[in-house]
């Protein structure tokens, strides 16, 4: 990206853009999570991609699929992020990124149903497990710090959180398949 002046869309379209971006934000975040695998990375890339989407919004045709259009921008921002800014060198190669991107674009249609199912699946967890899942999101210091706080071995906590996420994934899948039938 160079310092040349961007082609700015007309002011009359900014409300349209804001509406579309607001509605699509959760799906775009999930799309990026599928490519990057890390919540904070996905947030950072979406922030950058959002600025770029606005610059390029003049090329978006009203009435067409905004998520599909926006995910293309997100895809290239995710690749740029991995190339230059990723904290970890362990990221997916270009071939796998392309495969995940293609399939995820189709898979996103299940997103809303999964989110609805997640509420009831979280409610089914034991209260202590639900608190643990929430605590793992709040923990600034990561799993190690949370383990220290709870007086548990990091490896034990790590396995427990993996198990809880698998339980939730199974529950969400079960709910969405039941609704589909």
């Amino acid at each position, binding site marked *: 990206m160079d*310092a040349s002046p961007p082609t700015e869309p007309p002011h009359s379209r900014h409300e349209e853009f804001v509406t579309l971006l607001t509605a699509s934000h959760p799906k775009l975040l999930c799309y990026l999570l599928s490519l990057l695998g890390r919540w904070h990375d996905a947030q950072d890339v979406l922030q950058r991609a959002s600025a770029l989407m606005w610059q390029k919004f003049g090329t978006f045709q009203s009435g067409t699929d905004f998520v599909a259009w926006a995910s293309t921008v997100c895809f290239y921002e995710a690749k740029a992020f991995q190339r230059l800014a990723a904290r970890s060198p362990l990221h997916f190669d270009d071939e796998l990124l392309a495969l995940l991107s293609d399939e995820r674009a189709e*898979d996103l249609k299940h997103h809303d149903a999964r989110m609805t199912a997640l509420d009831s699946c979280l409610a089914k967890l034991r209260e202590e497990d639900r608190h643990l899942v929430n605590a793992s*999101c709040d923990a*600034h210091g990561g799993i190690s710090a949370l383990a220290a706080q709870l007086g548990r071995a990091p490896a034990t906590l790590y396995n427990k959180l993996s198990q809880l*996420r698998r339980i939730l994934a199974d529950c969400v899948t079960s709910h969405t398949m039941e609704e589909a039938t």
Partner: protein
Amino acid sequence: MTPEQKNRLFILFTGHAAETQTADEHAELQHALRHDAEARRLWFVHQDVESGIQSRSAVQTAFVSTKRAKVSAWRQRRPLAAAAAAAAAVFLIGLGVAFWSVSSSGGAVARVVAAYDARLVGVEGDLSAGRKLQLKRLRLETGRLEVTLASGVRLEMIAPLEGEFSHDMRLRLDSGSVNADVGEHGKGFTIETAAGEIVDLGTEFGVQADRLGESRVAVFSGSVEVHSREPRMGGGPVTLTEGMAARFSVQSGLRSWREVALAAREAGLASAHYTGIVERVRDNLGDDELQPFYGVVRRGMDPGMLAFTDKPNPRWAPRPGDKVPSFLLGADLIRTYHQFRYRKAYELTLSLRETAEVYVLINAQSQLPEWLAEKFTNTGESLIAGPFQGSIADWPGAIIGADSLPYFEFAIWKANAPPGEFTLGAAGSAENQFMYGIAIKPKNHSTP
């Protein structure tokens, strides 16, 4: 897929998210995702669940505490609705929509985060952390002052600096250097200089201005719009993104500027240009699209200075009970990128104006890279850097501070470098890897 295989997959998913995977585990995950459609479906379900949990957790905690001790606001979790609204708000800024209320009395309300030998004209008493200041006309005579505004914007101001706050979202910078970390609620924060305006579109940037109408902008992360007053620019703002720097003035318009001199000037010096020993800093990672830049702080090697360009928290400090080695005090500091610590083919080239003593600060637990052992000698002294994120508190050598966060010791290695180019290499290949820091002094000014 068997239950055991599924369990294994979720362990790999969790490890990837927590950045605790080994290279072998990562390869195993990649293989599974590439060759197994069911693994990919589970990956997507897992990410949806993760996203849903994170969003729900953020809604619960967002209004418990609006200001956290960590100032890296760009990492804050966002409520689901607020995240979408915030993303949308970014684009309203560029259209000139006033999104935040303006203080009716003018000026800005600020809280001190940290002060290092700071003298603020018109403000009596200690500039201790947490002190509330009403700032309108601003003159920082000495030192550095970090404040957080009511808008959530965090500013690092380096003396000598003069300017004026219109309100929480607008600062006119007449002269001096400012770094801004804008965060979630401060998008649209504007710094006005004689040469034009810099409007933030997200996160972290720095501005240096002088009274001759020259301004310099560097974007650490996110992006900013630069509106130059120079009529020959042809109108329209220019967007700078992460890693870019630009120089613009009333006379000469906008042009790229690869090095940003975050000058810590001595009182009385009026020069707007960095004239220190380092003429240029460049690495071999940039390309035509993005060019990382390196902040050079003149005489910046002091306790409390930020160690890395891309990490808002780790700062250099003496070991507990010790002092900064005298030979290091007043050295020019180069802020490296911690994110490049794993780049095996990384090269950083310094262009030096004169013979210099180059100091590399390298994590004491690290396996020494060959280039360091060949060119440098160990001074036997060290500093510590921190705090780092809590998730690495169990790494070898971690010193847990009073804030319960880890700090790490960095050994100081020294080399004599002739004028011209001097190249440093990759940080190393350890599993628990840190980037090194750099300090430089002219050889004839060094303390034996």
